């Protein structure tokens, strides 16, 4: 079970480079793809799901090129696109039955799998309900259920937790953990906490370029020792936010608690206490750096 993405690139017809020289080796487990909107995440996922043809590079599954054997790859791929929908007038089991048959499942095996995936997703009691009566979270779970029907070996999920409430998000992460033990799960998101809590490896895309690949803990190291919290008077906050990279702010009467990444050393800010960094801090710092680089590039041009 090994997915190898080699020097993958995609240039659209209008000349826009959506992805440039992306490399990644994936084995069983959960992998997170992070990046702002328009970074190239969905393009990468669409290439992996055979919806788009790359303009350069290749993707190998256990050594064979997925573009050369698309049908064989589809049989082992579960894909949940960012934009998807269901026929609202159909019941949950009817949708799974339909999708399963399109995947080549029949009879008892199909019936058993429908029951299993509905149970895994916590929709066992809602099988006979029409999809239009489902909440956003239930639809999302049903969407994942349909992608699991044919027991895929690789699961590609685009922005799965968007629109889920905190409880559903936690349940989703737990479910991902179980899936990650039996297949390759590639999760694209811009919710950093999802990557921090559930992925054992992550890759960061910015402007179509791969900027980091490794463990989330490794990514966090870039801000280790630079994340602080301090109390400052409310009226000083505008000046403070211009000088420091503020991550979070909480109002407490006439003062505010500010979590920030110190760029030039903490000693300039009296009373600032170091706190444990997380992936979100590192991500914000990274994005700020990318923004600054872009500004410098523009100035050079």
């Amino acid at each position, binding site marked *: 079970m090994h997915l190898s993405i080699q020097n993958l690139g995609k240039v659209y017809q209008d000349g826009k480079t959506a992805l440039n020289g992306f490399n990644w080796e994936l084995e069983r487990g959960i992998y997170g793809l992070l990046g702002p909107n328009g970074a190239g995440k969905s393009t990468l996922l*669409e290439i992996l*799901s*055979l*919806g*788009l043809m790359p303009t350069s590079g290749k993707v190998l599954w256990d050594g064979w090129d997925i573009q050369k054997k*698309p*049908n064989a790859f*589809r049989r082992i791929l579960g*894909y949940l*696109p960012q*934009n*998807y*929908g*269901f*026929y*609202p*007038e*159909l019941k949950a089991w*009817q949708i799974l*039955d*339909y*999708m399963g*048959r*399109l*995947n080549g499942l*029949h*009879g008892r095996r199909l019936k058993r799998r429908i029951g299993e995936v509905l149970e895994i997703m916590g929709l066992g009691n809602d099988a006979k309900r029409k999809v*239009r009566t489902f909440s956003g979270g239930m639809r999302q779970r049903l969407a994942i259920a*349909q992608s699991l029907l044919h027991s895929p070996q690789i699961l590609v999920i685009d922005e799965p937790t968007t629109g889920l409430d905190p409880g559903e998000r936690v349940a989703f992460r737990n479910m991902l953990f179980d899936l990650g033990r039996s297949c390759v799960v590639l999760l694209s998101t811009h919710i950093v906490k999802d990557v921090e809590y559930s992925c054992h490896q992550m890759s960061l895309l910015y402007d179509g370029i791969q900027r980091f690949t490794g463990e989330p803990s490794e990514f966090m190291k870039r801000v280790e020792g630079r994340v602080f919290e301090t109390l400052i008077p409310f009226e000083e906050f505008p000046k403070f936010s211009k000088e420091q990279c503020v991550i979070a702010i909480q109002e407490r009467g006439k003062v505010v608690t500010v979590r920030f990444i110190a760029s030039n050393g903490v000693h300039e800010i009296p009373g600032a206490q170091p706190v444990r960094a997380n992936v979100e801090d590192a991500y914000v710092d990274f994005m700020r750096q990318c923004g600054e680089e872009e500004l410098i590039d523009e100035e050079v041009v």
Partner: protein
Amino acid sequence: MKKSSEKVVMSSIIPRGLAKKVHRLLERHLPPKVMDWLSQFWIQTRILFSRTLILMVVAMFAVFTWATIKEEIYKESDAFSFLILQSLALAILLHMNLWETEREGRTFELLIMRIPGVNRLIWFKMRVSLLWNFLLLLPFSLGFMWFLTIPLWRELLYLFFLMTVSVFVALLTCVVSSFVKRGLPTAIIVAIILTMASSFTSAGELPAKEYFQFFIFPMNEWLFENWSHKRLAIMLIVNRLFFLSVAGLLYWWFYRRLQKTEKWIV
């Protein structure tokens, strides 16, 4: 409480539990492949008839046909003109929302993931809509055959020609819908294109215009009276070849449109 904006669906007219009983019964007795096809047919049918407009127009056609069949239509040529009109209307109605429903419901991406290849996806969707086109045409056509005592071989030929017209119009509607994206404007544009095309091919003394008419029928009385059998046979072949090339061109165009899904879906 049911909202007024909800679409009319077939399930509302089918007794509760009946569909499930039928499903179980069929699954017990039919081979898996047939069951798969029936399941896909059933779902696609529900999607196809989820628009009230389609059901209304089909019902209107039925009432109109049975009310006028004995009073107004005495000749085969009149019957054929009526059937052509019906075939055109049905093909437009059944296909104007065929892809729009998938696009609007955002089910297109899930489908294309499971049905590899644009050709197979087109075939998957259109075989059901064209089958319904045929099934809805059949009772009217058989009705004419009964009342006007048309021989079976001629009846079958009528049906063949009507279905070729339907295929052409269906493809044209699909191409237009991939640009326009909304059902009703698609139908209006297709109707305008067809009117222009038919008035061009029947305008004045256009040389050999019969060869290039989309909706010509070889047993046309005028042709029978004025043309030799040999000339008729040539006309028939050339006319159908022309039709096939135009339909092929439309298919290729639509195929290319579907290939650019990233532009079409959004």
